[in-house]
């Protein structure tokens, strides 16, 4: 691995970077999920006080990752925007940021928030292969420099999508006939990641030494269907705890490094919880 990626973890030719991003060096592809641009502004407009913060912070962090990786392509695994209001509020900052990276190819795999309300992002849909979400209307307020692909997008040997729950195992490209019951990854076999997804905002509670306090940190989560869930990238996003089953893996974002939790971590934490 390139020594400049300090604190990162390599996984099947992918690099899990501290700060909630993933880089595929061979493809020059930087992948993030759940940016939720404009969420804070949308909250404020609804009368909930949130400091002016995250939009510029999100762009600054993206800039840092682009500089670090020299990526040619940025893929956003859905929920780039929070809602219709947010899309309106964040359009100008988006254009400003986009102008800074004219050569970058920016791809959005649309997520549920991108498809919610008016001013939805237009999607390139070829006739005849429309999936469930392909009814998305093309509207006028397009963000310039944003290529929106179909909700389940194959790229360089991986399936990229927003919400893996809505998709069958076959669509994830599983060569094995896997179902929820049979698809336990054998603990010692090398894992073969089939898909990258977002939506879940995975966080994990890591118990501290004596067990009373737990640290809650974002994480990468590799589930039984060989789908790698990316942590939410956005500065103003919450998280949902994951509780890994045997064979599932968790990579915690520990601020300046990513740490692979041991196999069997979840089974242990669950056993303790239920005593």
């Amino acid at each position, binding site marked *: 691995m390139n020594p400049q990626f300090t604190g990162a973890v390599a996984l099947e030719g992918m690099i899990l970077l501290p700060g909630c991003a993933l880089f595929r060096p061979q493809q020059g592809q930087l992948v993030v999920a759940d940016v939720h641009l404009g969420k804070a502004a949308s909250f404020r407009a609804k009368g909930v006080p949130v400091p002016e913060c995250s939009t510029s912070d999100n762009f600054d962090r993206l800039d840092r990752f682009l500089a670090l990786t020299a990526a040619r392509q940025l893929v956003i695994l859905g929920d780039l925007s929070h809602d219709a209001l947010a899309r309106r509020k964040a359009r100008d900052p988006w254009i400003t940021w986009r102008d800074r990276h004219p050569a970058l190819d920016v791809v959005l795999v649309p997520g549920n928030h991108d498809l919610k309300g008016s001013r939805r992002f237009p999607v390139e849909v070829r006739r005849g292969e429309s999936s469930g979400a392909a009814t998305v209307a093309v509207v006028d307020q397009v963000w310039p420099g944003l290529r929106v692909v179909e909700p389940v997008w194959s790229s360089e040997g991986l399936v990229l999508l927003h919400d893996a729950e809505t998709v069958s195992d076959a669509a994830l490209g599983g060569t094995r006939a896997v179902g929820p019951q049979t698809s336990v990854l054998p603990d010692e076999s090398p894992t073969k990641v089939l898909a990258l997804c977002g939506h879940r905002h995975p966080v994990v509670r890591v118990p501290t030494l004596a067990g009373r306090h737990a640290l809650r940190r974002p994480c990468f989560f590799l589930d039984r269907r060989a789908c790698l869930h990316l942590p939410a990238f956005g500065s103003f996003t919450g998280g949902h705890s994951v509780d890994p089953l045997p064979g599932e893996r968790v990579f915690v974002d520990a*601020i300046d490094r990513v740490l692979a939790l041991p196999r069997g971590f979840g089974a242990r934490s669950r056993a303790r919880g239920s005593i």
Partner: protein
Amino acid sequence: MSGTHSGLAACVENYFKQRGWEALPFQRETWKAIGAGRSGLVHAPTGTGKTQAVWLGACLRWGAQATGTVQATRAAQGPGGGNDGIGPRIVWITPMRALASDAAHALGEAFLGSAWGDRLKVGVRSGDTSSAERARQQKRWPFALITTPESLSLMLARADAELVLGEVRMVVVDEWHELIGSKRGVQLQLALAWMRAQSPALQVWGMSASLGNLAEAARLLVGPDAMLIRSRQTKSIEVDCLLPEATTRFAWAGHLGLQLCEAVARRLDEAASALVFTNTRSQAELWYQALLEARPQWAGRMALHHASLDLEVRHWVEQALKSGRLQVVVCTSSLDLGVDFSPVECVLQIGSPKGVARLMQRAGRSGHQPGAAARVTLVPTHALEVIEAAAARDAIQAHEIESRRVPHWPIDVLVQHLVTLACGPGFVPADLLEQVRTTPSFSGLGASVFQWALHFVERGGESLRAYPDHHRVGLADDGRMRVMRQDLARRHRMNIGTIVSDAAVTVRFLRGARLGTVEESFVSRLRKGACFLFAGRLLELVRLHEMTAYVRKAKPGKAAVPRWNGGKMPLSLEMAHALRRRLQQAAEGHFADPEMRWAEPLLALQAHWSALPGNEGLLIERYASREGHHLFVYPLHGRQVHLGLATVLGWRLARERPASFSIAVNDYGFELFGRSMVADAALRDASLWSEEGLLDDCVSSFNASELAQRRFREIARVAGLVHNATPGRGRSARELQASSSLFWEVFLRYDSENLLLEQARREVLQDELEHDRLLVCLREIASRPLCIHTIERPTPFAFPLMVERLREAMSNEQLNLRLARMVEELERAARVSEALQ
């Protein structure tokens, strides 16, 4: 006018005569004071007629006038006139909405059947009141309105608040001792300040149970001119203890479990009626089951009562208790308050009484007959609790009762109040500041703090950091601050209140019957098919769906008991003092009472192996086990103070030499457990125990923990940052937790001077770590020698700390170092468990 008044007076006299009662001196005194337009606080033991004293006084003073006014209004309105009926004359605040209907019954009863019954109408307005009833009230307000602090605030958020509440002549606050120390009390203070500003002659009367600072409590409610009226009836309270047969020398919290069940059942056999109080709901469930097993014939005559049970079930139990159909009720603090029922013969308290006032209140449930003593029997769940029984008796005899203080400058409640008023009549900032300053919680409130709160609701932050597009409250054309948008006003009204609890999951049979609610955090840990005790039944979880846990009756087997929050209440200062006196006497060889004689073997062994913790010096025990080095310290100041002290000591020790400690606490002391030994010199270093820098050290050591962030959850809810009552959309508390922690992080990063953050830290300091008591404790320690003993094995006092499961982790090492070490440990543990398989 005087004619009607004498009519009322006759009616009141008649009320007493019919029941064969004699009005008590304190009641007549109250009537006189109310008649003279005074305000004050009435204190009398439970069941001696406090309610009659205040209610009849209010009617005597205001009843006649109100009737005239209502008639006048009706005449003015004409038949089928407008709906702007004149507001209520008396507002009666009850701390629990479950008590409101009881109160309505008690008040209505006084004039039942007389000509006045019709005119002195009593209405209830709380969260349980139907919208039809609300609409009726709006057409014609009752003479007296019984309500909760939340519903009163909700009335302030009405556009016609000035009209409806402007005619109130008197506010009565029942169970003021329950409200005084809480944010609900602050909410009430603010509402009262607003009402006083509307009608300066407003009378305010409170009723309170025993408190250490009654006179102060009266002033806090009413102001400097408060009258304090006490009943001259004093009830003697007897405390005894159900002693286990053998003395256990090594005991941990709860180790006695249900051992004393048979003894308790025998005690209950003899009583015609009894209450069994427990400290937690899970304990109540356990004891109910155990007693039912011990005496199957009690089925139908024994019931369970706690706050998680369905309202209807609780009502049924209360009614059955009143009518004497039940022989035994196992209950929690849910029966501490209000609910008027005839005294029971026997009151038992399972586990530590924790506080003197609490025990007195519970004891007061027995022996109401004039002259009869109230009596409570303690059932220890832990060997050391036997000593607490003797200590509690001392404290009651010496009349050393806990005091309650009001919260200081709770900004979140102020923020809520600002928006509440802005939803209703609006406010002028300068006037409101003066008004708010008249409340004890905000006395001397800095103009800059008020300004901050105003900016926060107006623009999110101060002018330099104003949040764009955020406008909850704005300046209206009439010069008042108002909420301009109806959607925001509606959402605010639905979120008024300061009670924040873990989201409740309804427990329901598959066939439909509702059993009650449990915390989401408990249910979410259960798997399908898991069994738990609830509502006196063994239940099996079938599925969890949309905040409802569907259950069926389980086959008898092993049960997991619901573990609810709570039950971590610390020993009060007064109890702790009494306990230390008892231990000191024991150290001097005095074992006067049966309890002390029972505990003698335990205490003797403690003295033999180490020493008894007492008044002489601070006992510290050091012990090296295979796992590491244990330090046991016994300040005897209650678990909260111990937690704070242990955290600060751990922090200070680690500052000298990087180390990480785990902490266990109980009411007697604490354990610091680490990998390396703490040198004697480090322990004897005065700076370790110094009160200097205590505040900073507290703040630093809490930053390492999540306490303040957890505290912020409630603050975010009260200040209106997160909402949980959107109709039709049950919002899971986990989502709410995530949101409040998100707010915490965002404020910390982008608006670090936000006063709500500071409040969270202050609340942790004051409420969770009891900074003031911590200070007292450190001063005490500084004035006494340290007695350091090296022990070869855990002593009777050390043992429960070792067993104590509650452990507080702390470390000042870097987060990722900690994580890395954790990972290493987890790896090792995983390898060990693999090897075992």
